[in-house]
């Protein structure tokens, strides 16, 4: 019984949907160039409530997970820990930057937390 519970738990983790965030900006750029996809960069900190709402609520939405993973290469950058590597200036967090990986040309920028529907519309507007 214990083994069965463990197996179910492991499988639920395996199949639970989540956005595939790269570990670093350099890795994300490499993947984006290789897969010919734009980058989605999120500036954040662990203590920012708006960022945590996005990470724990919005990024768990199946439609968003599927859309982001299909169309973007994503990375979360901590404005304190990754200070020296931040490619763009910012005035607040969370800020979402959508850019071309080769030149890092900005396609779109959006500041602030938002509901699932609004975020999905933002993602779609980048792809249009």
């Amino acid at each position: 019984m214990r083994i069965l519970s463990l197996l179910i738990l492991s499988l639920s983790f395996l199949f639970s949907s989540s956005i595939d965030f790269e570990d670093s900006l350099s890795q994300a750029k490499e993947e984006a160039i290789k897969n010919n996809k734009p980058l989605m960069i999120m500036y954040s900190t662990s203590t920012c409530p708006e960022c945590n709402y996005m990470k724990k609520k919005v990024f768990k939405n199946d439609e968003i997970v599927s859309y982001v993973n299909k169309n973007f290469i994503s990375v979360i950058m901590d404005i304190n820990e990754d200070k020296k590597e931040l490619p763009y200036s910012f005035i607040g967090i969370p800020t979402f930057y959508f850019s071309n990986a080769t030149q890092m040309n900005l396609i779109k920028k959006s500041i602030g937390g938002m509901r699932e529907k609004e975020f999905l519309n933002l993602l779609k507007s980048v792809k249009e």
Partner: protein
Amino acid sequence: MKYLLLLIFLVTNLLSYKQEDLEKYLATKSCEECDLSMANLSNKNLENSNLTGSNLTGVNFENSNLLKSNLWGTTLENANLNNANLRASNLEASILINVQCDNTILKGANLSNATLENLSCKNLSLWATRFLDTTFDNVDFSKAGAAYSVFDGVNFNDLKIEEAIFWNAKISNSTLSKQKCDYLEKEEAILYENNCEEH
């Protein structure tokens, strides 16, 4: 005519800030129990200000940065807080009446024991803001971002919350309509020991 001009001069002076208070504040960013009423403090970096107990009636803080400021016990009647950043500021026991508050950032601010009256704010940022025993009278927080906010001992009857984000907000010991309780539950707020009244 001379008397009329003198009267206008006196009334204007009575209703506006004390010049020495304004000079002190601009020089030090600290002015406790000062009179800064009607001062134009827009487009300024006023981070870490101390304005404890000051009269800020009619002050224009539009586009100003008041990050981590202490506004404990201030009077902000008819103040302009449009696009002002008050993140992590202390507005405990402050009075906010007829305040302009479009795009105001109150993220992580403390509005406990504050009095809020006649406020209608567009795109208000209330993420993780604290409202303990706060009084609301004709206040509109519709469409605000208020996830992780804390409301304790609050009467929601005069507070509009339509379409506001309340995910993971904590609402306790408060009085709400059944409709608002249902909305907050749908928003996945954490509700306990509230009075959800049927209307």
